[in-house]
């Protein structure tokens, strides 16, 4: 499939000097022929009368072979006559900036036949922009030389009117500034907009000529700021000194920049420079990856560095770290639960996700209290154009999502889901297994509201919650553990209200304030001697300020506070380390205790990070984070450093080193009777080195090597003797990740390939080194989705992963007190299951109607029903064993309707 990019520049200028007319506007127009891409543009307010009509940079990318443009002679419309719009008087006093998005139909004669307002940041600007656009004249679009009509998009940007001119003193001797612009390949860059901001904040705008040249003359002496904007290239910000009587000549070379999908999702072409490694999955990909049943969070399991969780559970195992060492965030706020029933489906409707940012290591100082990885889920804003709705029905649950704009500045979205396994669960359960007291059921909801009172502010409120419930009555006690009998239950619920306020304070400073609060309840029981009831109220606040101090230096500072009053009642065996415990002992063979604890977990944190452009190619991010853990009365300081070197505009080298800490689990640092309140924080040192390269637009490859060392891991004392837990564990993790990705930017195909080679080991106390519970030496994933056309789409995901280690049972001891056999573990994790492999396929057919869409999909996990060994089950005396296979073939049929 061939893609062709066509760059078109048209320049139009309106310039005024001296006393300006009362209405001054700056326009930036974006031509958007149907299915061609657009680029963004910025403006700045101009207090002076000199405004230029901005040149246009158009970027077109063609999709599929039918539209291949090599030699086809297809040219989009080109603006010939630009008409300035009237700044609405009603907004003049407010000196507002505004944007109006228009759809224009340009006829064969180059005249605008229709102009339709798609959106406007302020409704008062919509009609003036539309009226002016109707009077534009274009060179019409042509195909093989013949003029054809075309539909395109325009974005008008209104700058605030200038303040009244004050008589200036006689101007001093003047100078000039000449800029020569080059593209990433070093060629002259024509058609780029250059905005010159004088010391008094007045602006001039010019378009670079065919030689990439822009001249501002005459200019009073002083320090000027330049902003250079060009399609598909990174905006450049620079400061230059103009001296009287001199012409300052500078050369700027722009770098490859972001791209923006026509429908609003952002596909990250290259990670932002704050992280050594950040992997993002965009909106368009999130719900289409085969094997995930449309569950966006499942897609993370397919990324490099992420181990496969056993039995399809939702454990997040990142670069050889335990699941409890990584954290999920929603809009920067920690979330207590991510999946229903530990992995069935995620608690947030995938269609509300804007993106998932995954940081496998060396993450920014804005995240703390974890030594593994970070997953930050971004919730998108509700639709701003019109009402939308989605109903999804499948064999397990149903969900609904509705969203609508509210006025011109806000929007609201509501989603809800409920399972219906409970409707038929008791009919499929064998009578002799257990009685169903409460069949498994789960539900979740999300309510999102956004409001933009001004162009600089955005308020967002997200209310969400989730619940799982299951209660069974076992018919008989388990042969291997008579304490597993009677009631078996699980109930979890949580609710959250997250509010955030993002404000652009000025051109150089912005802030984010957020606050989250909500209760969480967890209750579970398994028999008479194992019960947990946990209630806590999570209160979380974050404040962050970002400032650009100069062209080369940005600084970010912030704080976040996690506060959770809790109440916990526990009956069960004394705590022990979870990871590396070997073959688990039965409840019957362990001493039962009861604990009740009421307290507050208080964990404030603060961070600062500077982003310094050391040279044109070398960027350094230097950060420090401080955390306090009230449960152990200790604080930590974690310095972090990231270096990013842009070898070329398409290739980055990156490296990072940093310290990361997390507190012990609350049951480990409990009071003297059950835990050890004198534990220290768990520490980790992350180092990484890698590169990523953009082959072409939306196609990237990367290699990342990493090494992590874990200190002060919490491990059990031998046989659980006091103080029960100690910081005598260490770990080492090292590996290599290869990744390749094709993003769905105007393509029929998207997909990715990832391979991880890794080793994760632990040492407990003075024991020899052993494998980590989820060490997977090789993790290979290949996934792709192809849009066939006529509404058909197919996709597949193949995984080949090393089997998980396990601990052999070398014998057993008969416990005459309980009439059970206690397994004797061999060397911990000394054996390994056979390799795991699985193929998932997905096929979807869409029917599009004028105002709605219907989709039927089939998602089949484990297409060839591979019986991957996941665990081992034993006879009552551990003399015989058999393999326990993982999930069999699971087809999931669903129907989805969207408005």
């Amino acid at each position, binding site marked *: 499939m061939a893609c062709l990019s066509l760059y078109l520049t048209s320049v139009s200028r309106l310039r005024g000097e001296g006393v300006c007319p009362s209405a001054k506007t700056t326009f930036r127009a974006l031509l958007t022929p149907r299915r061609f891409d657009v680029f963004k543009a910025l403006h700045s307010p101009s207090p002076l009368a000199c405004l230029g009509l901005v040149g246009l940079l158009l970027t077109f990318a063609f999709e599929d072979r039918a539209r291949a443009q090599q030699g086809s002679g297809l040219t989009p419309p080109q603006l010939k006559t630009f008409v300035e719009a009237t700044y609405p008087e009603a907004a003049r006093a407010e000196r507002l900036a505004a944007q109006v998005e228009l759809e224009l139909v340009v006829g064969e004669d180059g005249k605008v036949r229709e102009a339709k307002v798609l959106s406007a940041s302020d409704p008062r600007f919509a009609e003036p922009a539309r009226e002016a656009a109707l009077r534009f004249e274009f060179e019409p679009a042509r195909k093989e030389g013949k003029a054809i009509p075309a539909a395109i998009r325009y974005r008008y940007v209104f700058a605030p009117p200038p303040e009244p001119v004050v008589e200036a003193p006689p101007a001093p001797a003047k100078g000039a500034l000449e800029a020569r612009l080059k593209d990433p390949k070093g060629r002259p860059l024509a058609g780029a907009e250059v905005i010159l901001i004088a010391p008094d904040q007045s602006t001039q705008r010019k378009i670079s000529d065919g030689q990439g040249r822009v001249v501002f003359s005459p200019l009073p002496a002083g320090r000027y700021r330049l902003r250079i904007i060009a399609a598909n290239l990174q905006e450049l910000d620079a400061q230059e000194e103009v001296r009287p009587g001199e012409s300052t000549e500078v050369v700027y070379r722009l770098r490859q920049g972001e791209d923006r999908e026509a429908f609003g999702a952002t596909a990250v072409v290259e990670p932002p420079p704050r992280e050594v490694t950040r992997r993002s999955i965009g909106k368009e990909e999130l719900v289409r990856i085969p094997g995930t049943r449309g569950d966006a969070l499942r897609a993370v399991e397919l990324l490099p560095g992420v181990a496969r969780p056993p039995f399809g559970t939702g454990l997040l195992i990142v670069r050889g770290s335990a699941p409890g060492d990584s954290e999920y965030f929603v809009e920067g706020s920690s979330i207590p639960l991510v999946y229903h029933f530990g992995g069935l489906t995620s608690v947030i409707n995938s269609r509300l996700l804007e993106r998932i940012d995954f940081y496998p290591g060396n993450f920014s100082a804005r995240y703390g209290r974890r030594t593994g990885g970070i997953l930050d889920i971004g919730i998108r804003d509700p639709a701003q154009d019109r009402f939308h709705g989605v109903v999804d029905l499948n064999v397990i649950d149903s969900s609904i999502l509705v969203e609508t704009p509210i006025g011109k500045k806000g929007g609201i979205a509501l989603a809800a889901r409920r399972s219906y396994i409970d409707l038929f669960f008791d009919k499929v359960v064998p009578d002799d297994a257990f009685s169903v007291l409460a069949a498994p059921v789960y539900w979740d909801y999300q309510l999102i509201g956004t409001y933009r009172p001004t162009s600089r502010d955005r308020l967002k409120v997200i209310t969400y919650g989730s619940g799982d419930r299951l209660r069974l009555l076992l018919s008989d006690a388990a042969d291997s553990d008579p304490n597993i009998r009677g009631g078996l239950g*699980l109930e979890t619920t949580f609710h959250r209200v997250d509010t955030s306020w993002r404000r652009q304070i000025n051109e150089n400073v912005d802030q984010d304030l957020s606050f989250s609060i909500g209760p969480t309840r967890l209750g579970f029981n398994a028999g008479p001697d194992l019960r947990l009831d946990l209630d806590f109220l999570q209160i979380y606040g974050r404040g962050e300020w970002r400032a650009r101090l100069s062209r080369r230096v940005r600084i970010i500072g912030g704080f976040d506070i996690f506060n959770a009053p809790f109440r916990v009642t526990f009956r069960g065996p004394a705590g022990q380390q979870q990871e590396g415990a070997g073959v688990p002992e039965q409840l019957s*063979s362990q001493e039962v205790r009861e604990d009740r604890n009421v307290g507050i977990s208080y964990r404030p944190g603060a961070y600062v990070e500077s982003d310094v452009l050391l040279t044109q190619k070398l960027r350094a991010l230097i950060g420090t984070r401080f955390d306090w853990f009230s449960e152990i009365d200790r604080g930590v300081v974690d310095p972090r450093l990231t270096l990013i070197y842009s070898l070329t505009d398409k290739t980055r080298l990156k490296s990072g080193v940093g310290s990361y800490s997390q507190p012990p689990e609350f*049951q480990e640092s409990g009071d003297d009777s059950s835990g050890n309140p004198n534990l220290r924080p768990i520490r980790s040192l992350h180092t990484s080195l890698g590169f990523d390269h953009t082959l072409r637009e939306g196609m990237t490859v990367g290699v990342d090597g990493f090494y992590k060392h874990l200190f002060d891991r919490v491990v059990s004392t031998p046989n659980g003797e006091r103080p029960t837990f100690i910081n005598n564990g260490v770990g080492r993790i090292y590996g290599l990740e290869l990744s390749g990705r094709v993003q769905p930017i105007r393509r029929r195909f998207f997909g990715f390939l990832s391979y991880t080679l890794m080793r994760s080991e632990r040492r407990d106390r003075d024991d020899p080194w052993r494998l980590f519970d989820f060490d997977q030496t090789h993790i290979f994933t290949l996934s792709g989705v192809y849009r066939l056309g006529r509404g058909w789409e197919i996709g597949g995901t193949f995984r080949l992963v090393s089997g998980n280690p396990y601990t052999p049972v070398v*014998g057993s001891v008969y416990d*005459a007190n309980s*009439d059970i056999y206690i397994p004797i573990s061999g060397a911990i994790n000394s054996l390994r299951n056979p390799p795991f492999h699985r193929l998932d396929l997905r096929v979807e057919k869409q029917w599009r109607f004028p105002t709605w869409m219907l989709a039927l999909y089939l998602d089949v996990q484990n297409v060839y029903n591979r019986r991957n060994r996941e665990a081992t089950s034993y006879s009552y005396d551990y003399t015989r064993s058999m393999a326990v296979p993982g999930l069999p073939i699971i087809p999931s049929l669903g129907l989805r309707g969207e408005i």
Partner: protein
Amino acid sequence: MRALRVRATHLVLFCTTFHLLGCGDEFTPASFIDRPRLLALRVEAQEEPSRAWPRPGEAATLRLHLGFPTDEEALSWALLACIDRGDPRGIGGCAGAPLALASESQPTLSAPRLDFLVPEASALGAGKSLLFLGILCPGAALTLESLDPALLQSGNFASLCPNPSATSTVFTYSSSIAVDAMSNQHPHFDAANISLRADLWPEEPPGLGESCDGSEGLPLISAASGSQRIGLSVSADSREVYRALRGAPPKEEDVLERLQFSAFTRFGKLDRQFAFLEENEPGESVEYEWKLSKDTTVSENRIVRFDFVVRDPRGGVDWIRRAFCLTP
């Protein structure tokens, strides 16, 4: 907190799925005796065999209850008693040297037993429990001459009983010492209330083999008569009320003893191994069901034997044996 939530969720789901899928059904159930098995241990104060907790300075005996598929088999064995170190989990450990050792290094039909003397209170130190460790080797000689507690606790005992055709059994058992006027009595099966098909089920006469003709005084059960209901009862005084710490924060309260029943057979199958009289719930009886497996045919009379064991959570134990004559 999140790690605990995740582990709790997975534990409940695993148990549910395990039961739902019938995982483990392919293995011989624990209630089926297909090899020499140690079914229970019992500590008796020699002066008062019905008391489970010996007093300091008192002589006591450890007795073993064994079950064999058919006739009794010779086995070698070794037993030791020591003061329990009090490990909250695992197979336990000795606080100090063993109090007593006994062994038969060559296979023998004599029942294993260990006589020992509980130290005086002044010598007990902080220990309030006894720990018993031992090993049984069917049809083979033990290789060790002296019993090393550390060796048994290490789990490295595969070489101690080198009979590739038999399965050795290493066991651990803990029992309290009666101090501070606290004590515990063994529960006791009520022989008058052991029933089969609601009829009194008498004890098996001694000296019977594997076959029967209906004259042995055993109940007669036809193989075609389907499942059989077995009723077990304990004496009215078997369930003691004792003071124990309960709740959080823990406080002392009166608790009616919980009893755990185990049932075993050598032919056919029982519906379960364990049955319970739960703590603080009144009652003295439990029921089991026995039936033939679907693919089992009975072509001639045979005696079907059962062992039943009852335990309280503080080391008290009792056992009985019953049998019936199964006809085609």
